[in-house]
């Protein structure tokens, strides 16, 4: 296969051409955990698909809701978080220079605390003491130490995040008057978003769930805990998405042999995400009592505002594609598309992610549409939706990133063989997701519930129809899941190959040269105090009155129900 774009020309003005070796070790440690979690989580997904389709029965020692918890926790929380920190640590080392020993040590402390939390949680889930799914809604109650495990996980990521922020501020101190490279800027915005978002989940776990699970208090305010969870739960999805956007803005332009369309718009988009992805959690609670219609509508408006930076991103990225393709001699209204490196998985996998983000985002607009949410709330539609967003757009971008990030860190070559495996992997994933997510969306409209084990509801006709459709059939979901599992197995092999088997050599860490408008980027975009201040004001505006009402007009609290999950 001829693939001229496989050699990336280094851009010499970057601080470091390579990730410093000691920083690479820290990044790689995160990669290992991420991919182990990935393969176990993916296998659990296959089991779920087969069980729901009525194709297999689980052995008595394994519960459906237990494997559902494993799947959600390992893929949505563990894989994403570890991969993101691997990418951010490597990227800041590459663009801001190697980390000092002290800062790197903080990064390792964060890694170990997060990992201890992960192992403790995994142990309790295996014992069947924490089958509460990754949302752990009260008053279902897991083993008390499960909440300790969650705390360790979050605290560990804060410490790791602090290391990235410290590295950024050190760079700022020694490079006064210089504009932060785009990667460092975006990494900082992402970590700030993560820390503000986690305040909600930390509040409910530390002040509500731990005292309640350990018996220090006997009642919990259920609505408040759900609200604090969703204060965290929506920016969580942006914590997954922003690193994927970083790869699109900073790495992809280099991979296709061009440079970013606009620096200031990229930074503005990240500021808007920081502002508008947090005060929007009620759009996950549109169907529940105790929150007034007015405040639901206010947060619906704020939710829709966050679409603006996504539209900006779409414009910037496709602007970059067109600008690059035309510079290479492309012409016509659309025929310039032929100049893009379609056979390079480092471009193609994220590109498929971008394409899938169009239906994914459209579905998201439907979900957030106030009263329209009643049609799809908690149905399989929602599961189909987030398998397109995080399960395709984000993860395909992460896969595409792996193909250069892992060999770069392990000192191996990105080979044409690996490229072919990657292309196959991308197609398998996309096809599997078409069947699985497509049928999930349509079955959701027919009312099929999410998070529910195999059932025909005593052979009710409505439920039997979900096993009967040409496409709207649990068996279609299972077929999609089987194709996805093959794709996951191939990705795991690619990870092994890139880590231990590929020929030794060099693979470039692609960083785009600054966009031509970089010198005119307003300084205010890097005024974090200002943006954090505005974010805080928006959060206070969207949440103060409804949360005050939840506390003052609270019903009697609820005891814990730990016997229901066995």
């Amino acid at each position, binding site marked *: 296969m001829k693939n001229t774009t496989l050699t990336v020309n280094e851009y010499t003005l970057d601080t470091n051409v390579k990730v410093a070796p000691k920083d690479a070790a820290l990044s790689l440690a995160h990669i290992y955990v991420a991919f182990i979690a990935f393969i176990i989580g993916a296998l659990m997904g296959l089991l779920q698909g087969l069980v729901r389709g009525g194709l297999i029965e689980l052995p008595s020692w394994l519960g459906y*809701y237990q494997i559902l918890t494993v799947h959600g926790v390992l893929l949505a929380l563990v894989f994403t978080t570890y991969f993101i920190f691997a990418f951010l640590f490597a990227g800041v080392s590459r663009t801001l220079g190697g980390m000092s020993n002290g800062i790197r040590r903080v990064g390792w402390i964060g890694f170990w605390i997060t990992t201890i939390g992960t192992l403790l949680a995994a142990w309790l889930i295996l014992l069947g003491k924490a089958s509460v799914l990754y949302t752990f809604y009260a008053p279902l109650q897991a083993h008390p130490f499960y909440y300790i495990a969650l705390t360790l996980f979050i605290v560990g990521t804060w410490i790791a995040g602090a290391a990235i922020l410290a590295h950024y501020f050190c760079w700022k101190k020694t490079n006064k008057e210089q504009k932060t490279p785009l990667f460092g800027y975006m990494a900082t915005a992402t970590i700030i978003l993560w820390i503000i978002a986690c305040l909600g989940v930390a509040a409910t776990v530390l002040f509500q769930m731990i005292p309640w699970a350990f018996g220090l208090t006997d009642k919990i305010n259920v609505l408040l805990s759900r609200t604090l969870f969703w204060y965290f739960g929506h920016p969580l999805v942006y914590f997954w998405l922003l690193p994927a956007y970083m790869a699109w803005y900073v790495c992809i332009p280099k991979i296709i042999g061009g440079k970013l369309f606009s620096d200031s718009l990229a930074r*503005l988009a990240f500021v808007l995400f920081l502002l508008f992805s947090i005060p929007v959690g009620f759009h996950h609670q549109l169907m*529940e*009592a105790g929150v007034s219609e007015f405040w639901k509508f206010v947060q619906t408006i704020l939710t829709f505002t966050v*679409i603006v930076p996504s539209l900006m991103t779409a414009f910037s990225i496709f602007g970059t594609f067109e600008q690059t393709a035309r510079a290479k001699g492309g012409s016509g209204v659309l025929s310039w598309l032929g100049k893009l490196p379609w056979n390079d998985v480092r471009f193609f996998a994220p590109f498929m992610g971008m394409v899938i983000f169009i239906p994914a985002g459209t579905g998201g607009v439907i979900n957030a549409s106030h009263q329209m949410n*009643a049609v799809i*709330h908690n149905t399989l539609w929602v599961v189909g939706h987030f398998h397109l967003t995080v399960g395709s757009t984000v993860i395909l971008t992460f896969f595409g990133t792996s193909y250069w990030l892992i060999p770069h860190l392990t000192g191996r070559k990105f080979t044409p063989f690996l490229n072919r495996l990657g292309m196959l992997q991308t197609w398998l994933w996309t096809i599997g997701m078409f069947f699985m997510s497509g049928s999930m969306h349509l079955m959701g409209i027919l009312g099929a519930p999410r998070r529910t084990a*195999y059932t025909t509801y005593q052979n009710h006709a*409505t439920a039997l129809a979900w096993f009967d459709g040409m496409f709207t059939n649990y068996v279609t979901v299972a077929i999609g899941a089987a194709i996805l599992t093959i794709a996951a197995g191939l990705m795991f092999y690619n990870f092994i190959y890139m880590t231990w088997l590929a020929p030794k050599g060099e693979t470039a860490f692609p960083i785009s040269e600054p966009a031509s408008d970089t010198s005119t980027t307003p300084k205010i975009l890097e005024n974090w105090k200002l943006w954090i201040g505005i974010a805080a004001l928006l959060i206070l505006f969207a949440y103060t009155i409804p949360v005050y009402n939840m506390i003052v007009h609270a019903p009697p609290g609820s005891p814990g*129900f730990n016997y229901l999950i066995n």
Partner: protein
Amino acid sequence: MHLHRYEKIWLAFGIGSLVVFLTLLGITAFGFGHHPPSHMAIVNSQNLRNEAPFNKPGLQQIDKTTYQANIIAMAFAFSPNKIEVPVGSTVRFNVSSADVVHSFTIPKTNVNFMVTPGHVNMAEHTFTEPGTYLVLCNEYCGSGHHSMQMAIEVK
């Protein structure tokens, strides 16, 4: 900061559609009263069976064609597990939970809302077609979640 002319057009189109869209949502919500279920009444979930109207779960006739169904959601059933109404009836579902979080969901209708302990939630539906309607819980509520259901007979 410079905005490309096409970007201005693109963003104007995008933001413009959002404004139109939100205006329509707002008009249907506040003009026609078409809101998501957001009832504000509170109850004691641990004492639900002794509090009216949940001390007598079941159907209450309001007028000729209107009923209120007072229903308790619990792990892993609804009480009552069956109600019967004539075709053309409008039923106001008034549901609360005796334990954990559930949902009250009638597939193929717009009745689909969360039932959180301590709160009462409501939705209304007019049954114009006869048949046995399935009601299910679509919020995970424990190991028997998938068996939680009830029926609405419309004759």
